[in-house]
């Protein structure tokens, strides 16, 4: 089954329609998704700033990571669940949203960055644990992480604004926009 077919199937499920049409549920999920930024990106930011040597420089880096990462992880789990629900409420709108597509790519890059940090720089943390300013490779990992979360926030914020600029529902559009947004030919089936 192609991704498009999967989204079409998902959009036709009763729960997807119910969530999309609900008076409060959708807004509650959206609010949770946005406000969990404070826990998820907030604690990730403090971790990244420690890696950059810009805060809590007298606290061992491993300690900052060990004590704050559970909160970052918890925030991430809430983000993923609420995000998945927001996708589930309108699969076809997300499928045809340029910003959503780029956001998913950026999410994969952010995950790769975490994995790379874990499997390289973090292994040698004992050597620089007490350094107020960690070595260059740790600072790079922290900086890349910060940049990627900033990009993710930006793309997430832009998702609803596509409607005003170059949404698939605004035809005719240039071919490049239609391709990048994955606009499907039949506008009626792309309603949600």
């Amino acid at each position, binding site marked *: 089954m192609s991704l498009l077919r999967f989204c079409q199937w998902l959009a036709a499920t009763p729960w997807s329609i119910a969530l999309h049409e609900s008076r409060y549920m959708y*807004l509650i999920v959206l609010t949770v998704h946005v406000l969990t930024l404070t826990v998820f990106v907030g604690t990730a930011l403090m971790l990244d700033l420690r890696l950059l040597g810009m805060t*809590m420089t007298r606290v061992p880096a491993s300690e900052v990571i060990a004590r*704050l990462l559970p909160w970052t992880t918890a925030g991430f789990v809430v983000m993923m669940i609420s995000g998945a629900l927001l996708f589930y409420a309108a699969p076809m709108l997300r499928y045809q949203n340029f910003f959503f597509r780029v956001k998913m790519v950026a999410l994969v890059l952010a995950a790769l960055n975490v994995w790379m940090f874990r499997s390289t720089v973090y292994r040698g943390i004992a050597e620089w644990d007490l350094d107020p300013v960690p070595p260059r490779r740790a600072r790079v990992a922290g900086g890349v992480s910060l940049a990627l979360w900033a990009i993710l926030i930006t793309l997430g914020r832009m998702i609803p604004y596509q409607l005003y600029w170059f949404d698939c529902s605004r035809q005719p559009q240039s071919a490049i926009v239609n391709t990048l947004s994955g606009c499907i030919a039949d506008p009626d089936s792309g309603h949600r």
Partner: protein
Amino acid sequence: MTLLDVCRWIQNSSLLVAMRSSPWLFPIVATIHLFGLAIIGGSVLVVDLRLLGLGLRRQPVSQIARDAEPWLLRGLLVSIPTGVLLFMCFATKYYYLTFFWVKMASLLLVLLFTFSVRRKVAMSDETRIGPVWSRLVALVSLSLWTSVAIGGRLIGFP
């Protein structure tokens, strides 16, 4: 001149008319406002979690509070100017929204609380402040900030 007149005057000033006519400016400013939310979130959480006896437990509260404070100020420096701009774009709409006033009241309270009581408690010797008081301060801070954030989200809905 009433407050509503002021709102009307702000919203219709040529600068704000120009800002609204750009399709990109409002969402970009709103995005930067969200960066502020994340910065404030992180810098408030590390201290409040510590006051609750969670997070960086092995460090003294005063050390964490001292490290986090510049970032709280930076977060405010990002949030407040962008927030003022967002307000000015649709001043008369916000004037009529109860949640907007709830948010402003919570923000005023939390700023007063943060830079008086919370600062004093966080910066002082822990043996002199009981854990109950520390926890209470953290809970008040977290509740007020949550109220600011929820108010902020709710005034964004059409």
